[in-house]
């Protein structure tokens, strides 16, 4: 082992949370080093384009297809779920269906870009609905940080669309860019569905197809300059790319936006690197070194490897030293690293309460062509079932209105072609049949809230280690009746919407494999949304939580544990914007405490 020059702050993980904090701290004059487990191909435009070429040539074009992990920094892949041959050791009873990316830029390399704020009531589930637990922060405390996150990520939306179910905005506040234009198919669905009334737990809700805030470059408002593609040169030349300053409709936000018009954390890293940030790629944090006397962190041990493709990677072991340490390596990786270092939290809270948004697909054929397979993968959602008194009884849910036909549900258009050919169609009749079906494909995602459950957890087991001797995550996961009842309601409302819109319901037909879960007399095929949360929850009580409201570890006062793992509950919004807001708040609080000291 070798000791290295100390930094003020060492951050583990070059994803969105790490990038935002690194940028803020570097900007304040601190010396910051980020340790990133995976490769940094996305640093350069050419490197990123290699990832794009890999996507083109991949047969299965799943979220991980452009982003092959290093052998020394393995990651989950939804393609391995059925065979259970992947990174996670799944102990059930249900399969955890989500994935993430260990790489420079993190999972924002392949996220969709949905940037919804949480609802005010999402922070108050215990006091408002009598279930789960309250956050130690409320919406008003987070609102200023939401604003900053929306500017850092480059979110496109119009405030007028986003003030619903109690969400408020400061007078005069504007998102940095105008909303992304809704797709033609959004408009067709809205024509049929807007104003439809549904009953949720005895209350009526009125549905509306609504443009959602997206971290994709759209038409900028005055004073905002959209950030395009990243291109960091080794020889210090400045970035010279102007690609991606406006979304161009590549229909591939996930798994790779070819022009980088959709935000990824590399954009923030690039800015921080210009400001003096050091990022060490292919450096896998393996142990948090703690002084047993006072719990303070003395260093982070990490393993550095050269060859991402070596099956048995050669590596060297080092220790990174600083005054303050920040884990931003993902809800699962943060918990894994803590547990591997013997940091379990009081009462075993580290790793517990793992959540996701278990989700269903529903799909059908519109009565006339709606032009799918064009535009960002989605541009609108239906948000009206995200809040209400019914949450005392069952989970809330939201709908994402797809612009990519049946692709995620069945593998269309390839699967649609294969089915038609299998039926014996060829020549002009094949072409006509495909023109009729492919142009009318409609697909919704039904993403359902999940509450914290201490039995759902990440743990480590010395029997399961990766190629360089680090533990792999062991997952216990179940979906309870609260969530399943919400799932049933979401499916019921969706059927009614399809009927009203004249959409022929094809849900279930030609479905790709997804794990089953039973509820009453129904079997749902669910998938993960990639919305990991809850493994190091924040709270006011050190006995019940891992970190305080500043995301500082209760038992290790120079250690911060940051990300969606800190969420006490997760509501129905995609976690990235909220974890970004929390990360920016944590950076402020850390700076204030360092200045006070």
């Amino acid at each position, binding site marked *: 082992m070798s000791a290295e020059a100390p930094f003020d702050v060492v951050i583990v993980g070059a994803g969105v949370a790490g990038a935002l904090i690194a940028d803020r701290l570097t900007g304040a004059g601190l010396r910051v080093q980020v340790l990133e487990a995976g490769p940094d191909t996305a640093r350069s435009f050419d490197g990123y384009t290699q990832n*794009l*070429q890999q*996507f*083109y*040539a*991949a*047969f299965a*074009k799943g979220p991980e297809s452009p982003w092959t992990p290093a052998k020394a920094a393995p990651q989950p892949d939804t393609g391995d779920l059925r065979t259970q041959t992947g990174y996670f050791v799944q102990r059930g009873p249900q399969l955890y269906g989500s994935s993430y990316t260990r790489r420079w830029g993190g999972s924002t390399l392949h996220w969709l870009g949905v940037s919804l704020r949480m609802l005010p009531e999402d922070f108050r589930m215990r006091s408002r609905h009598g279930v789960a637990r309250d956050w130690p922060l409320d919406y008003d405390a987070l609102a200023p940080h939401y604003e900053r996150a929306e500017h850092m990520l480059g979110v496109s939306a119009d405030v007028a669309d986003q003030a619903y179910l109690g969400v408020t905005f400061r007078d005069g506040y504007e998102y940095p860019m105008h909303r992304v*234009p*809704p*797709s*033609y198919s959004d*408009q067709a669905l809205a024509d049929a569905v807007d104003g439809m009334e549904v009953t949720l737990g005895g209350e009526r809700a009125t549905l509306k197809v609504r443009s959602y805030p997206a971290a994709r470059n*759209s038409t900028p408002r005055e004073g905002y300059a959209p950030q395009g593609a990243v291109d960091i040169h080794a020889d210090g030349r400045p970035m010279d790319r102007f690609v991606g300053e*406006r*979304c*161009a*409709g*590549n*229909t*591939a936000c996930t798994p*790779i936006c*070819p*022009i980088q018009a959709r935000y990824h954390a590399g954009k923030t890293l690039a800015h921080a690197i210009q400001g003096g940030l050091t990022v060490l790629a292919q450096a896998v944090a393996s142990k948090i070194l703690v002084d047993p006397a006072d719990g303070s962190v003395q260093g982070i041990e990490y393993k550095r490897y050269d060859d991402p493709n070596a099956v048995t990677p050669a590596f060297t072991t080092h220790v990174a030293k600083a005054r303050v340490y920040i884990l931003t390596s993902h809800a699962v990786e943060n918990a894994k690293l803590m547990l591997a270092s013997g940091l379990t939290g009081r009462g075993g809270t580290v790793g517990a309460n793992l959540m996701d948004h278990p989700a269903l697909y529903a799909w059908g054929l519109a009565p006339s*062509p*709606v*032009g*799918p*397979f*064009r*535009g*960002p993968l989605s*541009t609108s959602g239906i948000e009206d079932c995200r809040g209400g008194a019914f949450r005392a009884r069952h989970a809330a849910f939201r709908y994402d209105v797809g*612009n*990519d*036909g049946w*692709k995620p549900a069945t593998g269309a*258009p*390839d699967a*649609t*072609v*294969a089915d038609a*050919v*299998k039926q*014996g169609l*060829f*020549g*002009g*009749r*094949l*072409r*006509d049949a*495909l*023109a009729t079906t*492919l*142009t009318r494909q409609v697909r919704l995602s039904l993403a359902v809230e999940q509450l914290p459950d201490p039995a759902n957890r990440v743990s480590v087991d010395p029997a399961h280690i990766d190629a360089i001797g680090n533990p792999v995550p062991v997952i216990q996961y179940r979906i309870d009746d609260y969530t399943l009842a919400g799932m049933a309601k979401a499916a019921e409302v969706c059927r009614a919407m399809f009927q009203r819109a004249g959409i022929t319901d094809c849900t279930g037909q030609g479905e790709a494999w997804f794990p089953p879960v039973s509820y009453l007399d129904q079997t749902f095929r669910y998938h993960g949304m990639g919305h990991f949360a809850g493994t190091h929850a924040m709270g006011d009580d050190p006995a019940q939580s891992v970190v305080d409201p500043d995301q500082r570890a209760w038992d290790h006062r120079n250690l911060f544990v940051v990300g969606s793992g800190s969420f006490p509950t997760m509501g129905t919004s995609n976690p990235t914007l909220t974890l970004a807001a929390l990360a920016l708040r944590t950076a402020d609080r850390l700076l204030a405490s360092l200045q006070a000291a």
Partner: protein
Amino acid sequence: MTDRSEQFLRLSSRLTGFGAFDLRGTGMLADYLAALEARLPANVLDELLAHGDDADDQAIGAILADPKLGPVARNIILLWYCGTWNALGASWSAACGAIADDKNAVISAAAYQAGLQWTVAGAHPAGAAQQGFGAWSLAPGASPQ
């Protein structure tokens, strides 16, 4: 253009419903023929291509019903529409001859982008051939015939 390419083009046109102009326009004609030659037993491909000269719809129906030629003909449709080779499997090989590299695969990055499925959908290959900001909000055009 060799006779063999012409045969392949005529057969492909019958199978896909796209004319020679559109098929040549994909730029993939030579690559697809080469992909077939690299994988299939030569006699099977020769036998199938021979049908390119005289194949009307009835003859194509007979080809598709044939246990040896049918799966290959269907794979040629998928080549043009999706840019993929779809594994024929062990039972076909056992009956009809060994196939080299019989795995599900995209022929190439270019083949993925050239898939006729995107044309017939009135769309574009996901991740390529971008349509421009806001194009998705316009009514879809009619599928070109």
